[in-house]
């Protein structure tokens, strides 16, 4: 006689260490198998989009820091590009190169955090996470030399960046660029060939590419399914059309593919920084003509940028005043989260957090 069983519903979060912030999943299990997931978010809602309507464009830069707080530089960049398009500001070349260097460093830092916490969720007890935090620390120290802050940078301004890099930044960046490829090799030795990681990740949470496209998923998640979609290449912003880089792709679209795409993207980012260093020239970092208080003409603008997590864009509507009439953020974390139910159903309890970690979300950006 079989045992009589019934589904059990568990609330995971909002105060759970593996949900990467205040995120709540109401999961229904049949034994150990997930049969239903209901994501509940909004615990970190701070009303950034509404707050932006009462602040000037320079002041909103501080709000964008706090949206995706592990990738502040790319958030800054996306907002600044939208403001420049709205007000027709032509940025200084040196400022643009500095912004690209900062954004690519931030991409490496964000991928390090994503991979480290993904492996932490997998149960690696911290070793890869601590290794990756060590390199992230180096990047944050570079940011501190650049702009005096480590997380909430507020580095970029309409027209360029607020100040040129100090003299001691360049040797430190060279040391980092020389050191980092060995570190990535170290991660690959540690994780990529590991049989336990392979068994736990291969073929888990597979989503076919058409579903991903239909759900407008972007970023490493989409590239892990074999779709060559990178906005740096498809709609080049800044000077990304002047640098050469590959788009690492994987075809399996499982958790391991999402991990390996991020590892390879870090190498490409290092290559982009090296090309930026070759092409950067002395000069002003922002045009003198850009005032502190910007009054763009009435109109709207949207620039999609490739943030570490996917397509990030700010839709700004101006009525000619000092503050935007409306600010809407296309947050990749939120949109990549929409397929969570499809990814998790049929998986085991132990794969729940691994899959969740492989999406790489940031609750500050999901809830804004």
């Amino acid at each position: 006689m079989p045992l009589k069983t019934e589904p059990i519903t568990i609330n995971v979060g909002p105060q759970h260490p593996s949900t990467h912030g205040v995120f709540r999943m109401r999961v229904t299990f049949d034994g150990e198998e997930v049969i239903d997931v209901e994501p509940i978010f909004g615990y970190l809602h701070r009303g950034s989009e509404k707050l932006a309507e009462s602040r000037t464009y320079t002041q909103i830069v501080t709000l964008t820091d706090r949206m995706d707080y592990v990738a502040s530089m790319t958030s800054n960049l996306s907002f600044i590009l939208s403001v420049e398009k709205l007000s027709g500001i032509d940025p200084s070349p040196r400022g643009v190169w500095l912004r690209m260097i900062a954004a690519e460093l931030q991409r490496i830092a964000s991928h390090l955090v994503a991979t480290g916490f993904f492996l932490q969720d997998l149960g690696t007890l911290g070793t890869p996470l601590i290794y990756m935090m060590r390199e992230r620390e180096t990047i944050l120290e570079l940011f501190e030399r650049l702009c005096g802050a480590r997380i909430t940078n507020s580095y970029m301004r309409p027209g360029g960046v607020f100040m040129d890099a100090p003299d001691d930044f360049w040797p430190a960046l060279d040391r980092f660029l020389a050191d980092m490829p060995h570190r990535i090799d170290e991660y690959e030795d540690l994780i990529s060939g590991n049989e336990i990681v392979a068994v736990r990740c291969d073929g888990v949470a597979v989503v076919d590419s058409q579903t991903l496209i239909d759900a407008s998923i972007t970023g490493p998640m989409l590239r892990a399914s074999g779709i060559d979609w990178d906005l740096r290449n498809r709609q080049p912003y800044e000077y990304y059309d002047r640098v050469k880089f590959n788009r690492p792709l994987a075809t399996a679209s499982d958790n391991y593919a999402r991990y390996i795409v991020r590892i390879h993207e870090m190498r490409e980012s290092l290559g982009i920084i090296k090309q930026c260093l070759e092409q950067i020239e002395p000069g002003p970092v922002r045009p003198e003509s850009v005032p502190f208080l910007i009054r763009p003409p009435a109109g709207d603008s949207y620039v999609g940028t490739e943030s570490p997590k996917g397509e990030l864009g700010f839709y700004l509507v101006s009525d000619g005043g000092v503050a935007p009439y409306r600010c809407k953020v296309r947050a990749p974390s939120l949109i990549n989260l929409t397929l969570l139910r499809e990814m998790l159903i049929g998986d085991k309890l132990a794969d729940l957090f691994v899959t969740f970690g492989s999406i790489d979300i940031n609750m500050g950006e999901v809830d804004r």
Partner: protein
Amino acid sequence: MIYGFGLAKGMGVTLKALVGPSFTVQYPDRRVGIMGAAKAAGISTPSLLFKHPIKALRAVLGFEHIAVMPTQSSRFRGNDFTWYEDRCTGCASCAKYCPLGIIKIVTLPGGINMQEGESYAIETFDIDTGRCMFCALCVEACPYDALHMGSEFERSNYVRMDLVLTKEDLIAAPKHPSTWFRPQMEEAGYSPFAEALEDMKKAGRHETPTVDELTQTWVKDRRTDEVVED
């Protein structure tokens, strides 16, 4: 591929890290051996043994600690502000550009600081650092380089009201301005950790503004702009 080869390779990486250099940063103090204790005291190891035998014994047993200075960039936006009263004209640009509105300035006519051709006394200059997010937009907005970010970061308190930096606090505080948005200080090679910058003339892009400069840059420009034709 032999099963288990990847595991062994990963174990090799961790073993290498076990014998490699340590990346841990010790703060606020770190443990030193007998040679480190002698170096910190500025004497040779044998003289430490003879002159301070108890200290040497503590160092051998691993109880001796020396203070570690924080390593931070000179642009570091600390938990603190540096303010030069003589440079400040009370124009309240910083209060206006603060995204949170936490700077409170009250001025009185008839003081020593010049604004729009008249002399003002700054009665209140409060910064509520309990709500501050240290974005440094106030520092960027200051036209006379009177307000700078500080380099201090150990500012924990038991009372929330102590987080409000008043005018008296700012005057009494040691002046270690950060070089954030102050290129003239970087050009001069100033480091906030080496020495204090008490001289307000060295802190700015130029000397204290004169009455002529102020009337030229502020009053005259503004008056021609604000002529309203009916």
